[in-house]
C-alpha cells in the first residue's frame, strides 16, 4: 500500500514542482529523490513496515509477488530516470509534468499488479493508459508524435470499450467483480462467461501488443519521443503483463482449457509477426518496436504455462528485458541517426558505449551468460513443465534464433563497419549508469538465484 499512495502523492508534488522551481535541475533531482523514496517505501512494505493502514479487502491484495515485482518496476524506473531524465528536456517545456505523469502511471501499475476486483483492474489500466496518451503526444510540435498519440488514444479507447464489455459480461455470469469470489468452477459451460473472458483477453492483449492486436505498437513507439518509448515499451508493458497473469491465474484458472490454446496460438503468431517484420526494418528504433512485440510473445509463454516457474520467469524477463531496452533507448536518444547505418563504426568512436549496446543486444537475443538467456530459458522451461505445448517451445527457440539476426545487425554495424560519428556525447555519470546496467544484466545472468533469494526471504 505504501507505494500506491506515495506515488500518487509524488505525482501531485511533481505537478506543482513546475511552479516551485524556475530551472530544470531541481525538478529532476526532486523526481529522482522521489523515486528513491518510493523504492525504500516499497522495500519496507515488503518487510512488513506499512506507512498507511487502509482496509482494502475485496479490492486490493498485496502479495509478496506483487510487491517484489513493484520493487523491480520502481528500480527500473529509477534507472530510467538516471539515464534518460536529461533527454526528457528535449521533448518539450512541461518537464515537471512528465515526471508527474510517470508517477501516476506507476500508481496504475501498482493497482494492476495487486487488484482482486475487476473494477480496480479497469481503473488501474486507465490510470496507466491516459498519461501514456499524453506522453506519446508530448512532443507538441512534432506531427509524428501527435499522430501517434491520436492513434493510440483512438485504439486505446476501443480496447477499453472491449474490456468494459468483458467485465460486464463476467459480472452478468458470476454476479461479482471480485475475482477471488467468482465461482467459476460451477460455470464451465456458460457462454456468457467465456465471451467475457475472451473480451478481457483481447483488451489485455491489446495493451501488451500481442498480435493481431499489436498494430498500434510500431506506429506509437516510433512516433512517441524516444525517452517515453523506452518507458512504455518496458516498464509499462511488463507491469500490465503481471496484471494479465494475475487476472487469468486467479480468476480463470478453472476454465483454462478454454483459453490456454488461444494464448499459445497468439504467442506463436506474435513471435512470428514481430520477428519476421523486425528483420526488415532499417531503423533501429522501429526494429526495437517490432522486437518488443516478439518479446511480448515470449512473455505470453508465462500465460500458457501458468505455474510457479512461469511466475519466476516473468519476473526475470521483466528485469532482463527492461534493463536492456532502457539502456538501448538511453543510447538511441543520444544518437542523431536512428538507422542501422547510424551505428556504423560506433565501436571506434565510443568503445564503451558500443560495448554496452553489444551487451544489451546479446541479452535481448538471449545469448548465454546474460539475463536475457535465463529469462527465455525460464519461459521455455515453464511451458515444458506445463506440458502439451512442445510445438510452441520448438517454435519459440526457432524464433529466438531468428531474432539473433537483427540484434546482431546492430553489433555488426558497430564493430564491423565504419562510419561518421552520430553520437552526440554522454556524460561520465550516464556512462557509469550504462556500465551499471550491463553489470546487472550479466550478474542476473550468472546468479539468478540471488534475485529469487530476495523474493522468498
Amino acid at each position, binding site marked *: 500500500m505504501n507505494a500506491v499512495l506515495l506515488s500518487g502523492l509524488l505525482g*501531485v508534488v511533481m505537478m*506543482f514542482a513546475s511552479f516551485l522551481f524556475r530551472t530544470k535541475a531541481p525538478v529532476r533531482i526532486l523526481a529522482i529523490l522521489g523515486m528513491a523514496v518510493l523504492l525504500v517505501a516499497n522495500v519496507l512494505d515488503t518487510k512488513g513496515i506499512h506507512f498507511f493502514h487502509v482496509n482494502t479487502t475485496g479490492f486490493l491484495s498485496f502479495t509478496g509477488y506483487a510487491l517484489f515485482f513493484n520493487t523491480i518496476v520502481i528500480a527500473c524506473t529509477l534507472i530510467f530516470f538516471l539515464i534518460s531524465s536529461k533527454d526528457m528536456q528535449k521533448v518539450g517545456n512541461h518537464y515537471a509534468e512528465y515526471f508527474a505523469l510517470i508517477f501516476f502511471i506507476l500508481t496504475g501499475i501498482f493497482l494492476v499488479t495487486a487488484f482482486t476486483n475487476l473494477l480496480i483492474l479497469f481503473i488501474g489500466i486507465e490510470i496507466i493508459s491516459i498519461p501514456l496518451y499524453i506522453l506519446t503526444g508530448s512532443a507538441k510540435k512534432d506531427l509524428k508524435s501527435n499522430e501517434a498519440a491520436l492513434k493510440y488514444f483512438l485504439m486505446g479507447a476501443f480496447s477499453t470499450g472491449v474490456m468494459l464489455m468483458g467485465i460486464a459480461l463476467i459480472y452478468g455470469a458470476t454476479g461479482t467483480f471480485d475475482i477471488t469470489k467468482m465461482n467459476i468452477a460451477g460455470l464451465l459451460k456458460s457462454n456468457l462467461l467465456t465471451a467475457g473472458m475472451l473480451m478481457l483477453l483481447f483488451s489485455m492483449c491489446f495493451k501488451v501488443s500481442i498480435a493481431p492486436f499489436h498494430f498500434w505498437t510500431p506506429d506509437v513507439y516510433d512516433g512517441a519521443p524516444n525517452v517515453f518509448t523506452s518507458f512504455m515499451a518496458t516498464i509499462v508493458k511488463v507491469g500490465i503483463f503481471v496484471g494479465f497473469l494475475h487476472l487469468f491465474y486467479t480468476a480463470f484458472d478453472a476454465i483454462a482449457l478454454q483459453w490456454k490454446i488461444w494464448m499459445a496460438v497468439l504467442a506463436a503468431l506474435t513471435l512470428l509477426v514481430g520477428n519476421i517484420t523486425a528483420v526488415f526494418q532499417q531503423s533501429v528504433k522501429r526494429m526495437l518496436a517490432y522486437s518488443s512485440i516478439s518479446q511480448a510473445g515470449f512473455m505470453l509463454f508465462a500465460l500458457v504455462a501458468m505455474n510457479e516457474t512461469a511466475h519466476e520467469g516473468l519476473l526475470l524477463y521483466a528485469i532482463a528485458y527492461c534493463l536492456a531496452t532502457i539502456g538501448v533507448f538511453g543510447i538511441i536518444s543520444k544518437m542523431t541517426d536512428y538507422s542501422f547505418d547510424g551505428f556504423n563504426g560506433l565501436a571506434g568512436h565510443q568503445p564503451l558505449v558500443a560495448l554496452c549496446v553489444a551487451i544489451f543486444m546479446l541479452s535481448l537475443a538471449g545469448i548465454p551468460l546474460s539475463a536475457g538467456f535465463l529469462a527465455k530459458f525460464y519461459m521455455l522451461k515453464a511451458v515444458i513443465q506445463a506440458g502439451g505445448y512442445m510445438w510452441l517451445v520448438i517454435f519459440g527457440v526457432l524464433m529466438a534464433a531468428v531474432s539473433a539476426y537483427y540484434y546482431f545487425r546492430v553489433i555488426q554495424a558497430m564493430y564491423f563497419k565504419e562510419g561518421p560519428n552520430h553520437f552526440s556525447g554522454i556524460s561520465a555519470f550516464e556512462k557509469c549508469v550504462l556500465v551499471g546496467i550491463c553489470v546487472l544484466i550479466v550478474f542476473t545472468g550468472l546468479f539468478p538465484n540471488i534475485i529469487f533469494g530476495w523474493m522468498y526471504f
Partner: protein
Amino acid sequence: MVNLAIQTNLDTSGSYLPIGLQLLFAAGMIVTLMGVTHLLGPKRRTADKLQNFASGIESHGEARQPIAIKYFLTAILFVLFDVEVIFFYPYAVNFRELGWSGFYAVLLFVAFFLCGFIYIIRRGALKWED
C-alpha cells in the same frame, strides 16, 4: 447435483427473452413508423423546403467553423469537475453511516481534486485573455 439446478437457472438464454423481445419491438417500431410516414406523406419538393430549418431565419455560412480551443478546454474542465462532484450525492445519502472515516476519505478526495483545480488555475488553463 443440487448445484446444477442453480447454475442452469443463472445462465439460460431463456431468461434473456424479454430483453430480446423489447429490442425487437423497438426496432420494429422505428421501421414501421419511418416506413409508414414515407408511404403516407405527400412529397412536394420546393427550394424552401430543402433548406435547413433555422427557426424561420435564413441560414448562412458553414456549420463547421473553427472554434477557439479555449471553449473546449473550459468545457472539458467543467465536465471533469462536474463529474467529480457527482460523487458527493452518494456520500450525502450515506453521510451518517460512514461516520468520521468516510469524512476523511471524502476530505482526501476533495483535497486531490482541489490540487487539480489549483494546478489548472496556476497553469492558466482558465485564463480567457492571453
